[in-house]
C-alpha cells in the first residue's frame, strides 16, 4: 500500500511552526514543566514578540527551538518544531549545529559576557563563516570586516583585530548582531537584546535590527519584558505566564483590546508619558515558582477578576477571542479589560 506524503501544512510564508512544545527541567524534586504546550507559527519577514516576566518560559521556549538547552538537566518532553518544513526534534546534536548559524541565529541579552574575552571580535565573526560557508581565513576576514561595517562599527578593519573588552556595550551588541547576521539566517531569535543597554543605544540597536530584517526579509522572534520595545518592533505578540501562552494577538489589537487580565496588568504597569500618576502601578504578588504552578488558571492568585471556577481543575484552554486573537481566560467574554488608547 502506498501512501502519498502528507502535503506540508507549512505554507511558503511560514518559517517556523511550534506545536504543543513541552519542556522540562530537572529540579531537586524531579522533572518540572517549565514550558507547557506552547504553539505558534512565525511568518516570513514577521517580527513576533514574546513577553512575560522572568521565569515565564519565554527564553526556554526559544533556547529549545535552537536546541541550546543543556542536555541531561533539561528535556523536550513533547511537541514538534518545524523549520521550513523540517522537523527539528528529529535532529541530533550534530545536525542541530548545522542549523544554528545558517538557519537560526541568536542574539543574547548580555553583550558584556556573550563574547569570548580571549579572542578578537573579528575572529568570533569570521569563525562562523569558516564553519558554515567553508571560507578561507582571508575570505572570512574580508566578509567579517564587511559585516562589522554593516552593523555600524566604525573603523571596521582596525576593530576586527580588537578584543571585546575594547568595545562598549552597544558596540558589542552590534558585534553580536554581525555574528547572527553572518550566514543570513531565516530566523533571528533576539533574547532581550537591548535590556542591558542605555536607552539611546537601545533605540539604535532596535533600528539596526529593523533595517537588517527589512533588507533580508528575515523572521525575528523578539523576547522581552519591555512593552515599549514590543510596541516599537513587533508585528504580533505572544504573552507568556507560568510556562503557557495566555494571550496572542497582533500588536495594536493586543494593546488596545487585551483579552487576558495579565496583559491588562502589564499594560497598566507600563509607565506612560502622557499621564502623571503618584504611584507606579504593579500587578500584586509574584509569578509562581517552577514546579509549583497553581491549579486552574495559573494567574488566578494574582487576578482581580478571579471567580471560583478559575481556581481549580486543569488550566483553561487557549480560546479564540477574535480571528487573530487568542486568550486563556475563562471569563474573557464577560470582561471588558482596559487597554491603551
Amino acid at each position, binding site marked *: 500500500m502506498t501512501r502519498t506524503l502528507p502535503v506540508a501544512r507549512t505554507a511558503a510564508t511560514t518559517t517556523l511552526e511550534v506545536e504543543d512544545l513541552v519542556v522540562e527541567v530537572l529540579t531537586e524534586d524531579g522533572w518540572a514543566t517549565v514550558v507547557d504546550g506552547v504553539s505558534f507559527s512565525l511568518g516570513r519577514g514577521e517580527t513576533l514578540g514574546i513577553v512575560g516576566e522572568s521565569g515565564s518560559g519565554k527564553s526556554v521556549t526559544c533556547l529549545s527551538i*535552537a536546541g*541550546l538547552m543543556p542536555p541531561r538537566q533539561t528535556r523536550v518532553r513533547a511537541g514538534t518544531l518545524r523549520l521550513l518544513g523540517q522537523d527539528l526534534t528529529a535532529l541530533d546534536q550534530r545536525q542541530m*549545529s548545522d542549523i544554528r*548559524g545558517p538557519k537560526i541565529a541568536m542574539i543574547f541579552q548580555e553583550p558584556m559576557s556573550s563574547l569570548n574575552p*580571549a*579572542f578578537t571580535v573579528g575572529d568570533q565573526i569570521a*569563525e562562523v563563516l569558516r*564553519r558554515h560557508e567553508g571560507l578561507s581565513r582571508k575570505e572570512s576576514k574580508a566578509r567579517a570586516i564587511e559585516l562589522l561595517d554593516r552593523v555600524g562599527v566604525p573603523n571596521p578593519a582596525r576593530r576586527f583585530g580588537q578584543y571585546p573588552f575594547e568595545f562598549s556595550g552597544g558596540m558589542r551588541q552590534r558585534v553580536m548582531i554581525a*555574528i547572527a547576521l553572518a550566514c543570513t539566517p531565516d530566523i533571528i531569535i533576539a533574547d532581550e537584546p537591548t535590556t542591558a543597554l542605555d536607552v539611546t543605544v537601545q533605540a539604535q540597536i532596535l533600528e539596526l535590527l529593523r533595517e537588517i530584517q527589512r533588507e533580508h526579509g528575515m523572521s525575528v522572534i523578539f523576547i522581552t519584558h519591555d512593552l515599549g520595545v514590543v510596541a516599537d518592533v513587533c508585528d504580533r505578540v505572544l504573552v507568556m505566564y507560568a510556562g503557557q501562552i495566555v494571550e496572542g494577538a497582533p500588536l495594536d489589537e493586543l494593546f488596545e483590546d487585551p483579552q487576558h487580565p495579565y496583559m491588562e496588568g502589564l499594560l497598566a504597569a507600563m509607565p506612560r508619558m502622557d499621564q502623571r500618576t503618584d504611584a507606579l502601578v504593579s500587578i500584586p504578588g509574584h509569578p509562581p515558582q517552577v514546579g509549583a504552578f497553581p491549579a486552574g488558571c495559573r494567574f488566578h492568585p494574582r487576578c482581580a477578576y478571579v471567580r471560583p471556577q478559575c481556581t481549580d481543575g486543569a488550566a483553561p484552554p487557549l480560546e479564540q477571542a477574535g480571528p487573530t486573537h487568542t486568550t486563556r481566560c475563562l471569563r474573557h467574554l464577560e470582561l471588558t479589560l482596559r487597554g491603551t488608547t
Partner: protein
Amino acid sequence: MLRFLLLRVLTTIPVLVLVTFVVFGLVLLIPGDPAVTIAGPDATVEQVAAIRERLGLDRPLLVQYWDWVTSAMAGDLGTSLYTSRAVATSIGDALPVSMALAGAALLISLVIAVPMAIVSALRRGTWVDRVATLGSSLGIALPSFWLGLVFVLIFSLTLGWLPATGYVPFAQDPVAWLTHLVLPALTLGIAGAAESTRQLRGSIIGVLQQDYVRTARAKGLRGRMVVGKHVMKNASVPLVTVLGLQITALLGGAVLVEQVFGVPGLGQVAIAAVTTRDIPVIQGIVLIAVLVAVVCNLLVDLVYGYLNPKVRPR
C-alpha cells in the same frame, strides 16, 4: 611585546639581587664553621685559620659577597669543599638530567590531566567523573617515593620491562636514556597530573557556564571546537599557574624520586652538599633553583598574556 619582555626581565633584577643576598646570608646562619669542618677534628687553630684565609672567610662580608656575585656572573660558582670539583661543573652535569626528568614528568602529567579534566568536566556527576576525581585524590595523597617503589616492583622486578635505577645520557644511548627516564618521570608525572586534573576540571566547569560558551554553541560550532577553542583558552589560566609551580618544584625538589631511582640530578647533588655542609655547592644549587623559578614565572606571565588579552601590555 618586546618592550614587555624587556620590562619584565628588568623587574626581575631587584628580585635577583635580593635573592643573592639571602643565598649568601643563609650560609652564615647555618651552624658550624666550614673551615673547622674541612680541617677535621684534629686540626690546630693555626690550620683552621690558614684554611679560613685560603677560602677568604676572614674578609669583610660585603667583600665576600661581592666576590661571590661577580664570579657567579662569570659562571664561576666556586669549588666544592669536598670533591674539589668546580661547582659549575657539578651543576652542569646534574641540571640536564633534572631538566630531562622534569620535562618528561610534565609531558606525562599533561597527557593524563588534560583529557581527563575535559572528560570529567563535560560528564560531571557521571561515573567517569567520579572515577577521575577519586583517581586524582589518590594521586595527590600517595607519596611519590612509595609510588616509585611500587612501579619498580611491578615494571622492573616483576615484569622486567624497564630498568629499576640509573641514568644514561641521551648522547650515549637515546633508547636507554628513554627507558631509564620512564619510571621516575611517570612517578613524578602522576602526582602532577592529579593536581592539574583537579584544577583544570574545576575551571572548565566554571567556563562551561559562561554566556560566551552558549554563544559559541549558538553559532553552530561543533562540540570539539566549542570545548577545544572557546572553553580551553579561558580555562587554561589556572592550569598554567599550577604548571609554573610544578616546573619549579620538579627541578629543585625531585629529591626523593631521584634517590629512589638513582637518577644523578640536582636533588642528589643537593643532598650530598647539605649533609657535608658543602657551602659553595649549596649556594650554587639555590641560585640555580631561584633562576629557574624566575624564568618559569616569566614564561607563565607570557602565557597569561597570550591567554588573556586584558593583561597584555599596549
